[in-house]
């Protein structure tokens, strides 16, 4: 079971944050097909948010084929986003950690690291399109 959290200052609507957190957990292999998502009551009791916000998020997950309701029980994960890429994640993470250590040794602070990453990410995406 995963737990949701909300960032009030993110500018992302609460329902979108829940959708993203589920997708994120699916990508990282924290959630698998067949896992139950927290019930609406569990989520609203923890986050003090409107139940419709949770229902809207779960509806969107259903719509994208990632979850399905089982009446009277709850909402369950029906697909995965990690598939074969999950195996590659371990080594990639190691490489990234080594790279981060190198960047820090070179004197980059967190903001510069993030900016550099975002920038490279964008140029690589542009190259992929071109």
């Amino acid at each position: 079971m995963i737990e949701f959290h909300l960032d009030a200052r993110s500018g992302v609507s609460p329902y979108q944050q829940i959708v993203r957190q589920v997708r994120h957990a699916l990508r990282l292999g924290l959630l698998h097909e067949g896992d139950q998502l927290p019930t609406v009551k569990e989520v609203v009791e923890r986050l003090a948010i409107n139940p419709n916000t949770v229902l809207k998020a779960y509806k969107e997950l259903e719509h994208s084929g990632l979850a399905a309701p089982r009446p009277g029980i709850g909402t369950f994960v029906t697909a995965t986003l990690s598939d074969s890429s999950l195996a590659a994640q371990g080594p990639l993470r190691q490489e990234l950690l080594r790279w981060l250590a190198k960047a820090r040794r070179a004197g980059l602070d967190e903001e510069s690291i993030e900016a550099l990453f975002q920038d490279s990410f964008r140029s690589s995406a542009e190259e992929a399109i071109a």
Partner: protein
Amino acid sequence: MTVAIETADLTKRYGRRAALAECTLSIPTGRIVGLVGPNGAGKTTLLHLAVGLLEPSAGSIEVLGHRPAEGPEQLARVGFVAQNTPIYTGMSVADHLRFGSWTNPNWDEALASGRIELLGLDPKQKTGSLSGGQRAQLALTLAIAKRPELLILDEPVASLDPLARREFLQALMAVVVDHGVSVVLSSHLVADLERVCDYLVVLVASRVAVAGDIDELLATHHRLSARRRDGLRLPSDWGVIEQSDTDRQSTMIVRHEEPILDPAWTVEQLDLEDLVLAYMSRARGDQNAPTPVGVRS
């Protein structure tokens, strides 16, 4: 769809002063409604009219399709927690539950004692020694154990510290999931209600400044900015809520049903607090404004 609260030109006067003026609203059931406005805007007056503690001076109000407090049945359908969560300080927690069971035909004893246990309250404790958060939770327990269809809470979190505030709203949301009750709650701070509400009514200076589904309000309000120049004109169907100009830039908040694609404008999304503040300052600036946007007339 049934209507939780329907008012038409609802007015309450004290002498010459109108505490609430020509308030027209149609609030659907199944919603959690935030009633927001500065102190003295008429929030408590509107809520007291809804539960029948006050009689209108003019106009009409119906709650769940009936006149407020028209009989025992109507009283049983609406739960009300007044400001400062009044309790009888000399009575114990258990006394309060007993009192609730005597005075309410649909009293749910299992629900009431279950919640008291969940809250970790000692039934023998005198309520005068409860913390603010515990009092609020007791008042919510009493209001929900009568199994109302509509729960009306006047400033339920105003006097609570941030933790008690969060705990109260958590409990309230759980109640909504369990019992499917409609809720109207007031606060002078929109930030208190932003996460829990899906419908908003803003009262300013005794009048409704704006009302509607929150997602809809957010989707139809835009902050626009552009380099200031002569001849910069807005289409007539854009409702301008707020406008400010410097010598170089024009900034405004407009209401428009469609996304704004005109490249002359930089368009930004508004958050709920900005939206409410824009309506508040507009209402304060022009109290004789014509029919406010978003109010069904």
